């Protein structure tokens, strides 16, 4: 049984005068970390809320863990972008209650709350009130709250918001652990470098539609220029097979002519006895792909 964890087909949703989601189609396979990307206002949050059965779609098919939205609520964990906790409650009390709302028994929820607080290094803060925690700590507590009922599918909307590098690393570790446990994670974030590190497949949404969809590795190859990054910069202008040379951030990018092979350039460098620290095929970063596609779309904006 290899049905997708998430299946969205031709999803549509409008508010008053705004078309938020305009025929969106994508799916998320079981056990993968999937990136849900897009610029602000692209329709990501609306889509996520529809998946969580907070909003109802105008049209389209949505299947969450094989069922209509809302039916499998207790198996889905959700960390919303606009998030918060009950300020006056104690941290563990708050997490326990949220676990109970997901159908857990009180004692089980309490135990899980303690385990998770331990995992996010907030064990000492369990008895404190939420309002006493710093912003970063509250973010970690909120992540814990989304995992308390041991969900099979976890949707994280901007989980790295407001976290310092150490905590961001911790969250990355948690996400990897979850994947190792066989869970499916849908990650929406603007930190492209982090997304790149974690996600296997992505969908890029713009103006409510999918403009890119597929395995990250394939997309990178698709968008990658036929170019090499060399350091230290070498005087390769005019060499056979070299189309152009550019210096970017202290790194030299040598764009080859179509059909030219990198190893020919490498051979030429060795033949000339030049010393080399780094010779690497340039792949487009997700950041570059994002900007290219979204800017390109900007030219075709709907009235």
């Amino acid at each position: 049984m290899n049905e997708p964890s998430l299946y969205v087909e031709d999803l549509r949703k409008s508010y008053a005068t705004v078309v938020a989601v305009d025929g969106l189609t994508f799916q998320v396979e079981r056990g993968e970390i999937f990136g849900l990307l897009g610029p602000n206002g692209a329709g990501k949050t609306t889509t996520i809320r529809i998946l969580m059965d907070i909003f109802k779609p105008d049209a389209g098919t949505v299947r969450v863990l094989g069922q209509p939205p809302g039916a499998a609520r207790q198996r889905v964990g959700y960390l919303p972008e606009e998030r918060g906790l009950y300020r006056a409650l104690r941290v563990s009390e708050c997490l326990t209650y949220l676990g109970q709302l997901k159908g857990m028994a009180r004692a089980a929820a309490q135990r899980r709350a303690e385990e998770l607080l331990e995992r996010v290094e907030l064990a000492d803060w369990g008895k404190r009130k939420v309002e006493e925690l710093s912003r970063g700590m509250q973010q970690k507590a909120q992540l814990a709250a989304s995992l308390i009922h041991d969900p099979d599918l976890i949707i994280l909307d901007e989980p790295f918001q407001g976290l310092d590098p150490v905590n961001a690393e911790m969250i990355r570790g948690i996400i990897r652990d979850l994947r190792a446990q066989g869970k499916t994670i849908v990650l929406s974030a603007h930190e492209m470098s982090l997304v790149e590190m974690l996600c296997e497949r992505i969908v890029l949404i713009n103006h409510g539609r999918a403009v890119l969809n597929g395995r990250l590795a394939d997309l990178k190859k698709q968008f990658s220029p036929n170019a090499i990054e060399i350091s230290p910069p070498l005087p390769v202008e005019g060499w056979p097979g070299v189309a152009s040379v550019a210096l970017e951030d202290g790194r030299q990018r040598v764009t080859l002519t179509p059909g030219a092979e990198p190893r020919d350039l490498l051979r030429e460098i060795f033949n000339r006895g030049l010393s080399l620290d780094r010779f690497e095929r340039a792949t487009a970063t997700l950041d570059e792909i994002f900007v290219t596609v979204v800017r390109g779309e900007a030219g075709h904006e709907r009235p």
Partner: protein
Amino acid sequence: MSARSILTIAWHEYLVNLRRPGFIFFTLLIPALGLLGLIVAGFFSGQAMGFLENQFERASQQTGLVDQSGLFTPLPAGFGGQYQLFPDEAAARQALLDGSLSGYVVIEPDYLETGDVTAYSIGGLFDAVNAADSDTLRLLLVHGLLAGQVDAAVLERAADPVNVTPVTLNEDGQPTGSTDIGSAIASFIIPYVLSIFLIISIFTASSYLLRSVSEEKETRVIEVVLSSVSATELLTGKVLGLGALGLTQVLVWLGSAVLLSGGLAAVAAGVAVALSPRVFALSALYFILGYLLYGTLMAAAGALGTSMRESQQLAGLFSFGAAVPMMFNSLIFASPNGTIARALSYFPLTAPTTMMLRLPLTNVSTLDLAISLGLLALSIPVVLWAGAKVFRMGLLLYGKRPSLVQIVKALRQA
């Protein structure tokens, strides 16, 4: 709709708000005030005795009488001890200034036509009224006017004409309750006080409802909550949990009233219940319906407002509806079956409070009950349905208050 979710929410809301210092303080405040009142009364009763004794001393001084009408000279028999007749005002005034009178009364020359009498004293208004001593004066005047002109028995009756026994008849024409003034008071004071308690607790519970909703929205925790339970389950759970809180509050007040009065209130309440189970049952019904109505409106206000303060302003509109009967309190008290009282009983927003005030005071007609309950029964499902929709819509609109058009559109969506 999962009963389990609803009960989890209800229990959580109940406990969290029960623990709030504000709630504990307010709930214990009433019994504390009652206790204080008892202590103060006890303390002052000692003082009061002294004060009253003082008055009696005063009263042992005579009152002067200047009869310019000529009808009361000589003084009627039996009043010589308390009143002393003076030939003119100057003499009476002198005696007052000398301190041998507590005050004097001048019967004007045209007394027979006008009834005019003027009372003089030194000490101030209270003393002047005292000097007039209207009960004894009235007796003197009646005796003076009728002595010798009518039968002695008629004279006595004219002097003290009435001795009222109130009897209330129920719909079948049977006398209800005992005609003893004491238990008549008990059978109205107890339910009346209970009504006030119920009204206060409806508003305490509703305001907690508003605050709870508004807080979840302000802290943004609402989105996670809505990913776990539906908006309707949330609303129902909160309404139930906080309704139970309101009831708890009333029970604490009743319990402490029983304790403070040394069980006396329980006896009186028992008597009252035996006398009018109808009143109690109807009051309970209006409490439930009133709470459902106001609670839902408050929750909707909490969901629509962009901040707690704004929600409270919205809620203020509805609270006004409930406060109106309280403003007309004395009118309802004076004529509980009057037009205003009846009109207020029909309009759903003012019906619960008005009826809870009317029921202990009078036999409310079946017609009034039918119309009042009927309109309430119609309005509550509408309010619940619309409230839940508005609730669902308003919750996620951070920082934007929905326009009236958006609200109407949300209501149209299935």
